[in-house]
């Protein structure tokens, strides 16, 4: 694609990791900055609560990406319900659409935030689709 520099990788991210409440800021890495530096796009998940239609809309998007050569991962946070990922709702929605479940990386708030940021950076750098799948689409 001429002049197009998309990264072909993105992450499902809980609201709490994008808009981290003050009380958690010291305990969590700046995930949005890590994703930005790693060339990942963001698919923001809603805060806890009932968001049936919105989660279905997000699952539609993940399906479209995962069937066309994009790498989709999920980043959760330990201590939040469902790791902040609405996993009990979104996993069946993805299965129903024939989309593979994204690999998950869980942030640990009880570990030094800088260390967790570096661990996330390494994990994101190491993940992508198999090379033959990349060549097919990109």
């Amino acid at each position, binding site marked *: 694609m001429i002049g197009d520099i998309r990264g072909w990788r993105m992450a499902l991210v809980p609201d709490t990791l994008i808009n981290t409440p003050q009380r958690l800021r010291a305990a969590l890495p700046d995930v949005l900055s890590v994703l930005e530096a790693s060339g990942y796009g963001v698919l923001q998940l809603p805060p806890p609560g009932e968001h049936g239609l919105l989660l279905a*809309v997000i699952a539609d998007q993940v399906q479209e990406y995962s069937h066309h050569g994009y790498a989709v991962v999920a980043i959760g946070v330990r201590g939040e319900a469902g790791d902040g990922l609405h996993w009990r709702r979104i996993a069946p929605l993805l299965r129903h659409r024939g989309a593979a479940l994204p690999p998950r990386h869980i942030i640990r708030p009880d570990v030094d935030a800088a260390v967790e940021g570096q661990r996330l950076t390494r994990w994101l750098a190491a993940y992508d689709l198999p090379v033959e799948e990349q060549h097919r689409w990109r």
Partner: protein
Amino acid sequence: MEQQKPPRKVALVANCLLNQNAKVCEGARYRGVVSPVVEALRSRGYVLQQLPCPELAFAGVRRWWAVYEQYDTPAYRAHCRRLAQAIAPLIERFLRDGDEVILIGLDGSPSSGVRFTSSKPDWGGRPNRPEDDWEIVPRRGIWIEELEAELAQRGLPPIPATGWALDMGRFDEAGSRRDLDEFLDSREQSQSTSSGENSVRTSGEGSGTP
């Protein structure tokens, strides 16, 4: 007694401002996150709320570019209304909590344009870049029209909005940043003179329909 949360500054952002993979083929100018937009909003204390991408879920991620008139169909508008109904409860919650809410769309986009959209009523057939030619006209994109209609139907006040000028033909990042900063500065000034102007903290009745 329930403790009242302090009001927040909330920026509704077009989907592709956080994820350039959503862009039409040949339209991504960043790898993932549109850094200058995120930096401008976060440095001013905004929390971010990503909007769904209407084109991606309708025409797919391998779609060609299009103009307003090509997307102006009953089926696409119905699809946009479904997406608006999916995200409106979150926006309504922000407004009813007394938060200051703004919207950052994507100027020039047939869907997410705020100040401008792309237009060419007789356009159709085979795309032919870079010869393709369309006009930029001062008008909302279809997704923004439908989102605003859904919010109005819920009795919510209009949301101050601007667009990041990514789809205006030649992309001028510095100019886009200046525009965005001016818009955000003007919001700060208006908030310092009248607090919570677009909020509806007293639930029940909206403070006005657009």
